[in-house]
């Protein structure tokens, strides 16, 4: 298993850079991962990442549709906050595994 150091803390990641242990995540770490992706985190980023983390830790599948039902932001804003591949980027920065859903 690979390891990476963010904000002075060493964390376990898989070969694609996704966290294998979400408990090692912190907001300070998120800032560093986001920087790698060219994203500067705002309150909105944290709010949707909280939603994704809670959903994942609660054992629920993550989908782009669930963002619209999150009550945090709509899908359009989500694409703007994490340009390119939003669900992949957001989960990576939020310290949770890459979603396996096709939706």
């Amino acid at each position: 298993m690979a390891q990476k150091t963010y904000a002075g803390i060493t964390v376990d990641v898989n070969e694609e850079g996704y966290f294998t242990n979400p408990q090692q995540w912190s907001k300070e770490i998120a800032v560093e991962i986001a920087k790698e992706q060219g994203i500067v985190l705002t309150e909105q980023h944290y709010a949707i990442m909280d939603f994704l983390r809670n959903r994942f830790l609660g054992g629920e599948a993550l989908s782009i549709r669930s963002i619209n039902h999150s009550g945090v932001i709509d899908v359009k804003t989500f694409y703007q906050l994490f340009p390119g591949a939003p669900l992949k980027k957001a989960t990576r920065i939020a310290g949770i595994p890459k979603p396996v859903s096709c939706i």
Partner: protein
Amino acid sequence: MSTENNHPIRKVSIICAKGTIEDVYAALIMGNGAVMEGIEANLFFTFFGMEAITKKRMDKLHTGVVGNPAMRLPGGMRMPSLLGIIPGMESFTSWMMKKEMDKLDIPPVSEFFDLFTAGGGKLYACKTAADMFKLTMDDLCEHVSGIITIGEFYEHAAGEGSQIIFT
């Protein structure tokens, strides 16, 4: 799994020419999946695929139950084609399909278009089919960018790393 590649797909233009639930969702899932990966996506609807972008019909699509040898009854037994002609069979099967898809968090067609276009995906209708079925922009879902000719479709599809997919 690494997806690093020297020739990544940058754009997909997907043609949907049929109006059954499974044909339309195949195109939608591929299109939305592309947008989610940061790939530019166009969906082009033609012939019976026009059902999927016609406001009044888009959320009422059906699955064809006659002449589908892969159709199975609950329990796994193959459904004889003749059973498909029983009144209500098509509606029941379509209802089942939609129920199962909802369990997988697959949205209804109209909502799927909301997600797809929110991510920058584009929807187009075929001019020939619109003329044939007497459909205008007023009949079509508000996310449709335009009724275009096949020539215009190829213009939209052009570019390096671009693929055209006929579902």
